[in-house]
Structure formats: structure tokens, C-alpha cells
């Protein structure tokens, strides 16, 4: 068996310990055209070049190694793969602190989200991942999640009463849409397109990029920019692997991660604008909510805050909300 652990397969171990080679395998879910993958390619290039070949990065996109974020996070935790770039929602199963970001209408805009994630709240959560065997490097994004349906443009709660709504498999998430008066239940992602096409479900919600990359515009007529949840992603590494890297490589990884964050967010926003135009061109009717209309939704979901306040922790919620100011 070739020397295991973090050594690479082609390990030409020199006499000086610091010429040791490390292989970083990044397994993620999104397609090659999506911003996270493009930014990951730059991440790879920087690490390989600036480490003089001591770091070797392999990227496995499209869920080819792990078909779900949950499975990929677990693999990073167990050391079965070195890195992944999941959405943070499934991370809440591993570290409940992250469920604060599932709360509806938590952030008013990008600036608030960035302030919270890149500030004290985000750093505290990243640090807390070490106890779970993971090193949280930086937060990227999938952007704001929006609501779509096949009945008509949504301008008030009345427009969505009783619609069959597909939700993520999380009670907080499902409760949110039940509070809004929808017939909400989780449904397997793989069958969602057909279910919307056939009318098994009327409505769904997702970030803009997902509507585009998975062609949901073909089966959903109306998109309402509710921005009800800001969906961050996270650059996640196995903690033992990170701690086992020499200091200079750790610093290089951190530096490249920060570049990844800036790069990916910029790309993501750019893609959101482009994809939204494409959605319109493909016949989706897009409408925005006025502040007044959005307030009606915000008021309606307050019971969700009350219900989950204790579980998530009031301090975390307040810390997140204060970023809106």
C-alpha cells in the first residue's frame, strides 16, 4: 500500500520535509459553468503555482464523487475527501449554529449578508467547525433564494394560498412556507422537474442560478424576487488535513481562499444578472416585491422565529439581524 495519509500518490519525498507533496481533492455538486466551479479552478491554479508544485489540486464537479452536499460534507468530516464547497443549509445537520441562516428574511441585502458572514458571526461559526473535524475557510454564495410558481405573479400572500409547494427537507424551511399559507412538503430534487411539469407541485424556490442550470424556467412560469433566504456556500476542508500542512502552505490556502471568496461572489452576482435575463428571454415572467409587499411576508413568518428561537439561540439571531443596520 503506498504511504497513506496526506502524502500524494506520486510523492517524491525529498530530504527536506518541506518538499513533501499534498493532494487536495475538491468534490462539489455544481456544474462546470457555475461560479463556484470557475472560482475553484482559479483556486487550484493559484495553489499549484504558488506552492511550486507541492500542492496538487483535483476538482470533481457535478456531484460525480458525492451526489449530495450532505454526503460530501460527511466525506470531508471523515477524511474521505479533502475539500468540498456545499451550500451551508445542509451543514446545519453537522453544526446547528448554521441553521440561523435558514431563517426567512434574515438579511435585507447582500451587504448585510456579507457583514454578518465575514464578520464576528461568520468567523465564530467557521471556528466552531473545528470541533466537527472540519476547517471552514471562507463563505461563498449561491445568492438569494426566490419563489416561483405556475399560477400567477405573486404580489401578496393571497396569491400563494394553498399552492403545492416543494420545500427542502428541513422542518424550519417547511414551516416557513406553511406559515405563508402554502401546502408545503419536501420532495426529491431529481424528480422535481417532472413533478412541476405534471402539476404534482405548483411552486418551488431556489437561487436564480439553479433555475437556469436545471432549466426550471421550462416548467415554472412566474418568478417573484422574494429574496427570502440568502444562501451562502462554504469552502470546507478536512481539519486534520489542514493542520497537517506546513505553516507556509496553510497561509497560502488561506490567501487563496480569500481570493476565492471575492472572485466567486463577484462572478455569482454577475451570473445572477445574466441568468435572470436568460430566464426572461425563456418566457419566465419576473416581478419584484415592493418594500410594503415584502413586509407582509416578513410579518407572516414571525411565528417561525418564535418557534425556532430557542433551538438556534437568540444571540446568534440578534447578531445576524444587527447586520441589517
Amino acid at each position: 500500500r503506498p504511504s497513506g495519509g496526506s502524502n500524494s500518490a506520486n510523492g517524491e519525498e525529498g530530504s527536506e520535509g518541506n518538499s513533501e507533496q499534498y493532494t487536495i481533492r475538491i468534490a462539489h455538486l455544481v456544474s462546470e459553468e457555475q461560479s463556484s466551479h470557475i472560482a475553484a479552478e482559479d483556486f487550484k491554479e493559484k495553489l499549484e503555482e504558488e506552492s511550486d508544485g507541492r500542492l496538487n489540486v483535483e476538482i470533481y464537479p457535478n456531484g460525480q464523487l458525492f451526489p449530495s452536499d450532505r454526503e460530501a460534507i460527511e466525506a470531508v468530516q471523515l477524511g474521505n475527501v479533502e475539500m468540498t464547497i456545499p451550500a451551508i443549509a445542509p451543514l446545519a445537520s453537522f453544526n446547528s449554529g448554521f441553521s440561523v441562516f435558514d431563517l426567512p428574511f434574515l438579511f435585507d441585502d447582500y451587504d448585510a449578508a456579507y457583514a454578518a458572514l465575514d464578520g464576528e458571526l461568520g468567523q465564530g461559526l467557521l471556528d466552531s467547525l473545528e470541533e466537527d473535524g472540519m476547517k471552514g475557510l471562507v463563505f461563498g454564495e449561491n445568492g438569494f433564494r426566490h419563489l416561483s410558481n405556475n399560477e400567477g405573479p405573486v404580489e401578496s400572500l393571497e396569491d400563494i394560498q394553498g399552492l403545492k409547494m416543494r420545500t427542502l427537507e428541513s422542518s424550519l424551511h417547511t414551516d416557513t412556507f406553511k406559515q405563508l399559507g402554502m401546502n408545503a412538503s419536501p420532495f426529491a430534487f431529481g424528480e422535481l422537474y417532472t413533478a412541476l411539469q405534471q402539476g404534482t407541485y405548483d411552486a418551488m424556490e431556489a437561487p436564480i442560478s439553479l433555475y437556469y442550470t436545471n432549466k426550471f424556467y421550462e416548467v415554472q412560469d412566474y418568478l417573484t424576487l422574494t429574496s427570502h433566504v440568502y444562501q451562502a456556500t462554504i469552502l470546507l476542508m478536512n481539519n486534520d488535513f489542514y493542520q497537517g500542512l506546513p505553516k507556509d502552505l496553510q497561509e497560502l490556502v488561506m490567501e487563496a481562499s480569500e481570493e476565492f471568496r471575492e472572485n466567486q461572489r463577484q462572478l455569482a452576482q454577475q451570473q445572477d444578472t445574466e441568468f435572470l435575463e436568460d430566464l426572461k428571454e425563456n418566457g419566465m415572467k419576473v416581478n419584484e416585491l415592493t418594500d410594503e409587499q415584502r413586509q407582509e411576508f416578513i410579518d407572516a413568518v414571525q411565528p417561525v422565529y418564535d418557534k425556532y428561537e430557542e433551538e438556534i439561540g437568540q444571540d446568534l439571531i440578534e447578531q445576524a439581524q444587527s447586520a441589517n443596520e
Partner: protein
Amino acid sequence: MAKKFAKFEEAFLIFTLALMVALIFGQVIGRYIFQSAPSWTEEAARYLHIVQVWVGASYAVKLREHIRVDAFIIRLSGLPRKLMESVSVIIWFGLVLFLAVFGTQLVLQTIQFGQVSPAMQIPMWIPMLAVPLGSIGMTIRLLQQLRDVWKGKYGKEESEEIMI
């Protein structure tokens, strides 16, 4: 004792299969009749199914129902057949022993990290237990099968014949 256990195992598997049917049927009824379906039925049914498969795999060892290519091995008889069958059982045993040990480790690690399931919020190690449990069951049954091989019994018991 072994008979009683097998009976209990059978009843358990039948009960969980019935429960899966009830959960998913209930979900359909819920969505259409009560305009609301709980968020945990799918997850519960999925985990029950994993238990079905792994515990059922152990049950199937008892019945000698696992699918194999026996075109070559059945051409042998006497000692060569016994030896070949034994090697095959021992290799199989090696794999399930590995799964039992590493599966137990996986469960212990998951207990330590505290991962919970997304919908029901139950500890993930509980459904994960299916893999080591089924594997431990298989290790025991494969030892019995090895004994049977040396008694010259290779196939399934006549009374246990199941038509696919």
C-alpha cells in the same frame, strides 16, 4: 435460539416494510386530503429502507438467496467443490467483517461528531447502524454456511425456495 432469532428478524423486516408503505401512502393522502404533508415521512421511509436492505441481506444469507454466477462452480464436485465453495465464503466473510468493523467505527465517529438528520433531527448514527448490524448478522451466518459447505450442503433449503 437461532430459529427464534430468524423468526423475529423476519417479523421485524415485514413490519418495517409495512411501515414504509403506510408512511408514503400517508404522505399522498396528506397532500391531497389534508392539504398538508409532514416534512419527515420521506426521510423516515428512506432510513427504514436502508435497514430493510442491510438486515434483509443478512436474512437472505440464511436463505442462500444472494445472486451469484455459479455456472463454473457447479461443474465441480467432491473435495474441489468443497474447497472452492469455502474460499468463496471466506472471501465474502472477509468483506462483511470489514464492513462490520468499519461500520461500527463510522457509527462511533458519527456519535462523536453529533450529526443529525435533516428532517427528523434524529442522530444520524441510528440509521447508520443498519450497515454494521446487517454485516455482523452476515458474519455469523457465513460461519454457519461454511459449516454447511463441509457437510455438502451448497444450495438453498428446499422449503425456503423463493421464486423471484
